[in-house]
């Protein structure tokens, strides 16, 4: 066990989709719905095995159902998973439990059930409000489905809702993007995740672009969209707390950030369970097997393994202290307001950040990409646009 006292975060992967979108390279599968009941049993088994290996009920402050499309699970299945979680872990009272949902896969009753079982944050895959763009992305819903889903969610009591949108799409103009953002804002979400499209290797979209069936998006236009978004949301009172994430301030003026994702960015320990899920705990980065079939097989038949492994663990990598320091920089600098605190760093690693990375800091400062505000190292305005040039120095 590490010296970390918690609280921890728990990621649960649900690798099912009705259709795999053309741009998506996540570990998710369409047409394997018949595996769902077994998968849920396997996931519950893995949760239990993990807790057994830990020998204690670790304290959790966030749970995140990611996918895939977790909203494809039935209420009973979600309930079963959550009750396995609360048995295996100590779910802290002030928790954040997020579920990723696709519009068109939820209804009033299912949302009602989710809220009742303790899920208190919804992350809705809106992606765009424009029918032509949704077609290019191969999404299975339209904007009306989003409006309807949000209405229902509000009606059953959800008070923390995120909308996912993608910009820099083929054919998308800055005007198109601005309309998408305005329509999203009209739904009064608490949180916005606005991602620049990456055309991932091996995806159908990559092939379409390669064959000239889709134009390759112009990176300069995407830059314009990003700049406009920063300015516009800032003027609307939003807080740009991470490269791709914005949150409304709460009553205390703090951004209503996704606490689960903050755990990643602060490079703090999290547990990842489910097919292809990643965890970082006890100084180890672990990952589970990718395929749901193998995953089920392993979890239902496997023996107990040494913490933090489970029967489904496929890879384990030890992170040395220097790598952990690097990753703390690489992830932490994504947090635009918080950055990496010099004193926290010293407390955690027993070393001065400025000594460990003297050369990198001098280089990046010289380029005007990095700056220090009081105790915190932060990306500059230019650095936000060119984050990779900064993060790269810490790998």
């Amino acid at each position: 066990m590490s010296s970390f006292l918690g609280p921890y975060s728990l990621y649960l992967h649900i690798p099912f989709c009705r259709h795999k979108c053309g741009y998506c390279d996540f570990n998710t599968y369409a047409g394997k719905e018949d595996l769902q009941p077994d998968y849920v049993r396997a996931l519950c088994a893995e949760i239990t095995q993990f807790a057994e290996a830990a020998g204690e009920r670790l304290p959790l402050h966030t749970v995140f159902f990611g996918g895939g499309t977790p909203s494809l699970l039935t209420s009973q299945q979600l309930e079963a998973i959550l009750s396995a979680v609360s048995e295996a872990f100590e779910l802290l009272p002030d928790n954040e439990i997020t579920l990723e949902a696709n519009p068109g896969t939820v209804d009033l009753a299912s949302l009602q059930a989710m809220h009742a079982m303790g899920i208190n944050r919804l992350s809705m895959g809106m992606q765009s409000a424009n029918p032509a763009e949704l077609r290019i992305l191969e999404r299975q819903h339209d904007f009306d489905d989003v409006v309807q889903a949000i209405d229902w969610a509000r009606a059953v009591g959800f008070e923390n809702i995120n909308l996912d949108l993608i910009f820099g799409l083929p054919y998308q103009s800055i005007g198109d993007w601005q309309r998408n953002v305005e329509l999203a804002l009209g739904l009064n979400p608490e949180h916005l995740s606005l991602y620049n499209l990456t055309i991932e290797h091996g995806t159908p979209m990559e092939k379409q672009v390669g064959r000239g069936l889709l134009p390759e998006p112009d990176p300069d236009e995407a830059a314009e969209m990003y700049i406009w978004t920063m300015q516009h949301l800032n003027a609307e009172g939003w807080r740009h707390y991470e490269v791709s994430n914005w949150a409304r301030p709460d009553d205390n003026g703090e951004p209503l950030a996704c606490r689960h994702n903050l755990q990643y960015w602060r490079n703090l320990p999290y547990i990842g369970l489910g097919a292809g899920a990643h965890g970082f705990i006890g100084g180890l980065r672990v990952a589970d097997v990718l395929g749901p079939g193998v995953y089920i097989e392993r979890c239902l038949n496997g023996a107990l393994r040494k913490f933090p492994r489970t029967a489904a663990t496929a890879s384990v990598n030890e992170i040395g202290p220097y790598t952990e320091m690097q990753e703390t920089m690489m992830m932490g600098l994504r947090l635009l307001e918080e950055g990496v605190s010099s004193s926290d760093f010293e407390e955690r690693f027993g070393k001065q950040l400025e000594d460990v990375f003297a050369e990198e800091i001098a280089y990046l400062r010289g380029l005007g990409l990095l700056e220090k505000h009081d105790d915190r190292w932060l990306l500059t305005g230019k650095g936000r646009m060119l984050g990779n040039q900064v993060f790269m120095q810490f790998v």
Partner: protein
Amino acid sequence: MSQEHIRNFCIIAHIDHGKSTLADRLLQLTGTISDREMQAQVLDTMDLEREKGVTIKASAVRMMHTGKDGQEYELNLIDTPGHVDFGYEVSRALAACEGALLIVDASQGMEAQTLANLYLALESDLEIIPVINKIDLPAAHPDDVAEEISNLIGSNPDEILRISAKDGTNIEAVLDVVVEKVPPPKGDPDAPLRALVFDTHYDSFKGVVAYVRLVDGKIAHQDELELMATEAVIRPVEIGVFAPDLQATKNLSTGSVGYVATGLKTVNESRVGDTFTHNEQRAEEGLPGYQEPKPMVFAGIYPVEGEDFDDLKEALEKLQLNDASLVYQAETSQALNFGFRCGFLGMFHMEIIQERLEREYDLDIIVTAPSVEYEVLMKDGKTLTIDSPAELPDEGDIEEIGEPWMEIQIFTPTDYYGAVMDVATKRRGIYVSEDYPTQGRVQLNFEIPLAELIVDFFDQLKSRTRGYASLDYQFKEYRPEDLTKLEVLVNKESVDALAAIVHKEHAYHKGQALITKLKELIPRQLFAVPIQASANGRVISRANVKALRKDVLAKCYGGDVSRKRKLLEKQKKGKKRMKMVGSVEIPQEAFLAVLRLGDD
């Protein structure tokens, strides 16, 4: 072994016609190498050779075979390099043989490359033994191929051997026909020693190992020997034969093939084409055909990171131990700092050296665009020899620039006559004459500046003739030409390593093409980078590499930090391979852009 029982031969074949497979079969059949030790292409020991399927260094192997007459024969197979850059090395290897197996693919027939080598072999007076290989292929048409060969070299089509090296058909007959047809070496055993050096390699224990063919006289392992051209005197560390690895013996007899481990520390003292004789009883003159290695193509090689300079130096020293034709000297570039000016036999040779530095020595290097050697006559009457555009003096001080011209011969099927004409004349080639050595084949002779030859000429020739054409070249003379320096400015600074010497007529067009290409190849930086080409102080072309505006990974991939890290590592690695020139990162490809300006 008595002279009567020695046969020295080589194999002539087009690439892919099965030379290496046949060599492997012969080795197996004669028990020279056991099946267990068998590794495809035994003779090509370098990884690069296996990959490219081309022999870069010559090598030799001795096989013992009992002939049909029941007597035992020593068969020495000498493998020859397979590229036009190594023409001299090929000629020396052929000079060590009395016969050659001409291997022709039963499905493809005679090809141009084979023809070129065949002519070389005929010039060396070798007995040519045609062999039709790959008769196992469904598409084989050995009768037609036999007819074709017979038209060319006048042998009886029915007597031509038909084999399959792949499945082993008729391999024994190949050995028998070598014994029967290849004449035994002539040579006088009682004359003063003359042994031809046809290749060398460096061994850290034995020093330079010279591969020799004894023409006259004998060698005993205690003999004091002299190399006639370099005048180096040595007492061999060891002498021996290739069996197929080095196997020490006490004597080497007249006509045989073996090695002399010289103990010499550099190949400069023991060069291909030189003649060993006895120090006590010298031969009157060396064997004919010796030439000093003459580099034709010059390029700068620089470490990407300045601190790797010493490693690069050491690597070049080591490579030169095995390769006397590689020359280098330290040079300084304003843009690239400290590196080496290197001379190569040709572009292929240059690529080989570049790849070996990168792979075998794990160095990140920048190779600048190759240049030829110019003779610059100055107004004050002096003549300068320069091999780098950076060295070209001020235009005002120059009376005349002499450019090296070559004679080239291109063999091709007649169908590609027009294509070959086009490729050559577009590159300032001047048509001289044509010959028709065989039905359907033409040899076209041109004169062309060497500078045009080294700029993707061979690639273009190959692609326009679907690989059928082959090329041979020799130096002709220096001719005064109207040349000028094309300079390139990156971020307003002249980058000497990107400059080129071009014909004035082409300066404008080449300058534009070069800038277009550079704009593609130089990645976007944190600031906008203007690039310009100029000649005679006049800007010909300009473009801007736009500033990088946005470069940041959008998503976190569900806590998969390793993946994010890997993506960043990849990006960083790409960056590290670029050379910092001023404040601009320039990738290797940009320095060779002038070679890839294309046809139009």
